[in-house]
C-alpha cells in the first residue's frame, strides 16, 4: 500500500477565508499546513460581493449591540446569543485587522472605511436601515480572499494545493489527521496532526438554482457524519432572493442597499406589502418568500418564475423621493449611472455578460437561488467540534466558516455576516488550535490502514461496473430538493423527497465512471463528492420534515407559524452507515433577548 506521510501540528482543510485566517494565526505559533482541493484564490469566499458587517459607525451612529440584536432577530431567535454577541463585538477589530493587512476597502470622504446599507441591519431605535457593511466595491469577498492569501505567502504558510480530503483519521473519538488525494498524481497522502480544522464551505449544489461554485460539495460535514458525529440545524438553508434568472449567479443585496427595488410582472414594487419599514432590505428569507408569493399569485414577469430587480437611476431616485430616503447630511439620496457602474461594477459585468442587460438602463431578471448553509458541523465559540447534543467536545477536531454551525446564523443569516463569520471564527480557531496543540503530543495513528481504507473506497468506485450515471443521479437529487425542500415546504412533499433520496442513495451504489486513470481524475472525485451531497440532502430533508413550524428559512405551508414553545431548539442529526437518520435536539443559548414576532 503506497502512500506519503506528513506530519504537521495543525492541518486545515479548505483555503477560503476561514481556513486562511486560521492558518495565519495558527501558523504564527505552530507548524501549520493547509490542504485545498483548489488553488486557494479559487475558493468561493472570492464570490462574496457586498460587504462585511461591523458596527464601525464611520458614517452614522451604530453599536455592536445593535448588530448583535439584528443578527439574533434575523436568525429568527434560533441563533446562540452568546456566539452572536462574541462575533459582533469582535467585528470592528477584525475589520481593522484586515485593513492593516492591506485590504483595499472603499473610503469615505474622510478616508475611513466606507460602509453601505444591507438587509436586516438597522438602527435599533429608528428601525431604519443602517450603513454597516464595510465594502470594497462589489467584490469584498475577492479582496478578503486575496488579502488573506497574500498574507499567507508573506508568512510562509505551507500549502498543499489541489489535494482532496477523502477521510478524517479518528482514533478513540479523537481527530488525529486526514487522508488526502493528490489530484495531479492520484497518490494518497496521510497527514498526521494534533489538530484538524474543517473549513470546507457549503453545499448549495444539492439544489438546481444556486449561487455556489461547482466545487462546494460539503466534504467536511459529510465526513463528520460518516464518522458517527452529528450535524446541526441542517433544515436551515438560505435562498438568496436575487440570483440571476436561470443561472443563480448572485446579485448582491448591496444592489438593494444602494437603492435597487424589486418590481413584479405588473410593474408594481411589492416589498412594501411584506416589509413596510425596510421594504427591499428585509432579511433574505422574508424577501425570497415574497418573490415566491408574487410568482405564485401570477405576478412573475411574463407569467414566469422571476421578478425584476431595478437599479436604474431613474427608478431608484424616484423611490428615494417616495421613501424620503436621506443621506447623513440630510439631503435626499440620489444615484447616477457612474455610481452604479463603479459601486456595482462586477454585477454590471455579470448582467451584461450573461443576460445582455445593462443595469443602468434596464431591470435585472432575478429569482431566489440556493446560497448559504446556516447549519453544519456543531462547534463552540472556540471552534471545537461538538460530539453530541450534550456539548461534549471532539478532541482534535475544529470547524469554522460555512461548514460549521456555532450557531451565529440560526434560521436565517443576515447579509455581510458570512464574511464576518469566517474571519472572526477563523481567527479564533487559529489561536485556539495553537494553544491546544502546544499542550499536546502527537498520538499514534495507523497510517497504513487509514490509507488502505480510502484506497478501497476509491477502488470500489473505479471498479464498479454498474449501469447508473453519477450525473443523472445528481440531477435527480437537485430536482427533488428544488421541488420539495426549497423556499416553501409541506409534509407530503418532504416525505416524498426523503423516500426518493433513499432510492437515489441505493442507485448511487451502482454508478460507473469512464476515467480509470491516476492523473487528474476529476471524474472519480466528482463521483465521490456526489456521495457527500446525497448524504447532506437526506439529512436536510429529514430534519426539515421533522420541524413542524415555520422559522427563518424553513417555511412550511402546513405549519405557517413559528412555535417557540415546542421548536425553539437546535436540531442535531446523525446518519448511520445503513442510512438511518436519528434526530436529537438541544436548547438555544439565550443571553438576554427573548423571542418576539419578527416584523421588518
Amino acid at each position: 500500500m503506497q502512500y506519503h506521510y506528513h506530519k504537521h501540528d495543525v492541518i486545515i482543510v479548505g483555503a477560503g477565508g476561514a481556513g486562511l485566517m486560521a492558518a495565519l494565526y495558527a501558523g504564527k505559533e505552530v507548524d501549520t499546513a493547509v490542504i485545498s482541493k483548489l488553488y486557494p484564490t479559487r475558493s468561493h469566499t472570492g464570490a462574496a460581493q457586498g460587504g462585511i458587517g461591523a458596527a464601525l459607525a464611520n458614517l452614522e451612529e451604530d453599536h455592536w449591540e445593535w448588530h448583535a440584536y439584528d443578527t439574533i432577530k434575523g436568525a429568527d431567535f434560533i441563533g446562540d446569543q452568546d456566539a452572536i454577541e462574541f462575533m459582533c463585538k469582535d467585528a470592528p477589530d477584525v475589520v481593522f485587522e484586515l485593513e492593516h493587512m492591506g485590504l483595499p476597502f472603499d473610503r469615505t470622504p474622510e478616508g475611513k472605511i466606507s460602509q453601505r446599507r444591507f438587509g436586516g441591519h438597522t438602527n435599533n431605535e429608528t428601525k431604519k436601515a443602517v450603513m454597516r457593511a464595510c465594502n470594497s466595491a462589489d467584490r469584498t469577498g475577492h479582496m478578503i480572499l486575496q488579502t488573506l492569501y497574500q498574507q499567507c505567502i508573506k508568512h510562509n504558510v505551507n500549502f498543499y494545493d489541489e489535494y482532496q480530503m477523502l477521510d478524517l483519521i479518528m482514533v478513540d473519538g479523537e481527530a488525529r489527521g486526514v487522508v488526502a488525494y493528490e489530484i495531479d498524481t492520484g497518490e494518497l497522502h496521510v497527514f498526521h496532526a494534533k489538530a484538524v480544522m474543517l473549513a470546507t464551505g457549503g453545499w448549495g449544489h444539492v439544489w438546481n438554482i444556486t449561487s455556489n461554485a461547482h466545487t462546494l460539495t460539503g466534504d467536511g460535514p459529510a465526513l463528520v457524519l460518516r464518522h458517527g458525529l452529528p450535524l446541526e440545524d441542517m433544515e436551515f438553508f438560505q435562498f438568496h432572493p436575487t440570483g440571476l434568472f436561470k443561472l443563480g449567479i448572485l446579485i448582491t443585496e448591496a444592489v438593494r442597499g444602494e437603492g435597487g427595488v424589486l418590481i413584479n410582472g405588473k410593474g408594481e414594487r411589492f416589498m412594501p406589502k411584506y416589509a413596510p419599514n425596510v421594504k427591499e432590505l428585509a432579511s433574505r428569507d422574508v424577501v425570497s418568500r415574497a418573490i415566491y408569493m408574487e410568482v405564485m399569485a401570477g405576478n412573475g414577469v411574463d407569467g414566469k418564475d422571476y421578478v425584476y430587480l431595478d437599479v436604474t437611476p431613474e427608478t431608484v431616485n424616484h423611490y428615494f423621493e417616495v421613501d424620503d430616503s436621506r443621506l447623513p447630511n440630510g439631503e435626499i439620496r440620489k444615484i447616477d449611472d457612474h455610481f452604479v457602474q463603479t459601486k456595482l461594477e462586477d454585477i454590471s459585468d455579470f448582467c451584461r455578460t450573461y443576460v445582455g442587460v445593462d443595469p443602468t438602463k434596464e431591470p435585472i431578471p432575478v429569482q431566489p437561488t440556493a446560497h448559504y448553509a446556516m447549519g453544519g458541523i456543531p462547534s463552540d465559540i472556540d471552534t471545537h467540534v461538538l460530539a453530541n447534543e450534550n456539548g461534549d467536545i471532539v478532541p482534535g477536531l475544529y470547524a469554522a466558516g460555512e461548514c460549521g454551525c456555532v450557531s451565529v446564523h440560526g434560521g436565517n443569516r443576515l447579509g455581510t455576516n458570512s464574511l464576518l463569520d469566517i474571519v472572526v471564527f477563523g481567527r479564533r480557531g487559529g489561536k485556539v488550535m495553537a494553544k491546544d496543540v502546544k499542550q499536546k503530543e502527537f498520538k499514534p495513528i495507523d497510517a497504513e490502514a487509514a490509507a488502505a481504507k480510502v484506497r478501497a473506497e476509491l477502488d470500489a468506485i473505479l471498479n464498479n461496473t454498474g449501469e447508473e450515471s453519477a450525473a443523472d443521479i445528481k440531477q435527480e437529487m437537485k430536482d427533488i430538493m428544488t421541488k420539495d425542500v426549497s423556499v416553501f415546504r409541506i409534509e407530503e412533499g418532504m416525505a416524498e423527497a426523503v423516500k426518493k433520496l433513499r432510492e437515489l442513495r441505493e442507485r448511487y451504489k451502482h454508478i460507473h465512471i469512464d476515467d480509470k486513470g491516476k492523473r487528474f481524475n476529476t471524474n472519480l472525485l466528482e463521483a465521490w463528492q456526489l456521495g457527500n451531497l446525497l448524504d447532506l440532502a437526506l439529512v436536510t430533508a429529514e430534519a426539515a420534515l421533522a420541524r413542524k413550524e415555520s422559522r427563518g428559512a424553513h417555511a412550511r405551508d402546513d405549519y405557517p407559524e413559528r412555535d417557540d414553545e415546542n421548536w425553539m431548539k437546535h436540531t442535531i442529526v446523525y446518519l448511520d452507515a445503513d442510512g438511518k437518520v436519528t434526530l436529537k435536539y438541544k436548547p438555544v443559548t439565550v443571553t438576554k433577548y427573548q423571542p418576539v414576532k419578527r416584523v421588518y
Partner: protein
Amino acid sequence: MQVTLKIQRFNPEKDSAPYWKEYTVDMHPNDRVLDALLYVKNHIDGTLTLRSSCAHGICGSDAMRINGVNQLACKSLFSKVGNNVTIEPIAGLPVIKDLVVDMEPFMEHYRSVLPFFINDDPPPEKERLQSEEDRLRFEETTKCILCACCTTSCPTFWATDAYVGPAAIVQAHRFIFDSRDQGASQRLEILSDPDGVWRCRTIFNCTNACPRDIKVTEAIAEVKKEILFNKL
C-alpha cells in the same frame, strides 16, 4: 443551436502527444462554453478533464484558449463564440491532462514580486486613512483573479518562460501604487531585472485576454515609468 466543439485532448498515461477530438452537442446561444464542456464530461466522455469552480468569472479556474483567444470558459457564451469552437489549454505552461495545465510556474512568478502588503509601522488603533483618490489609484489592478489568461497569451512569455509575465506585474502594481504600502522600491528592484517589466514588448495580447477588463499593458507601462522616473 448545434455546436461542434473541437477539443485538444491529452492523457499523459496513454498518449504520446496531444490530439484533436470533436463533439457535437445541442446548446442555447446563452449557454457558456463551460456548460458544453461539462455536458460532454457528464454525458459523453467522463475522461474529459478541465478545471472549473465558480462558473461566473470570479475564481479564474477555467482559463482556456477558445477559438485562439484566451478566455474563461464560464464567461464565453455561444452567442459570442459561434457554433464551431476550438478549445485548447492555455499556452506556455506544461499540459497535465486535456485542458489542465501546471499552474506552478505561473504561481512562482506571482510569488516572486512580493505580492503582499508591506508596512512595518505599528498600525493605528482603527483603520489607516486613505483618500478616495489614493484608493482609486490602484483600483484597476485589485480586480485580478490570477486566472493566467494574460500571461499565457503573451508571446514573450511563450518564448521566455523566465519572464515574470503580465499577471505578476499587475499584482505588483496593486501594491506599488497603494499609498499605504512601503515595499514599492523592493518590488521595482525585482521588476527592473532583465526578466522583469522590460521583456514586455507592448503587444497588448494581455489586455485583450483579461476577463476582468484590466488594462494590463497600461499597468505594465506605469510600472516601467515608475522604475525610470521615480523610485530607482
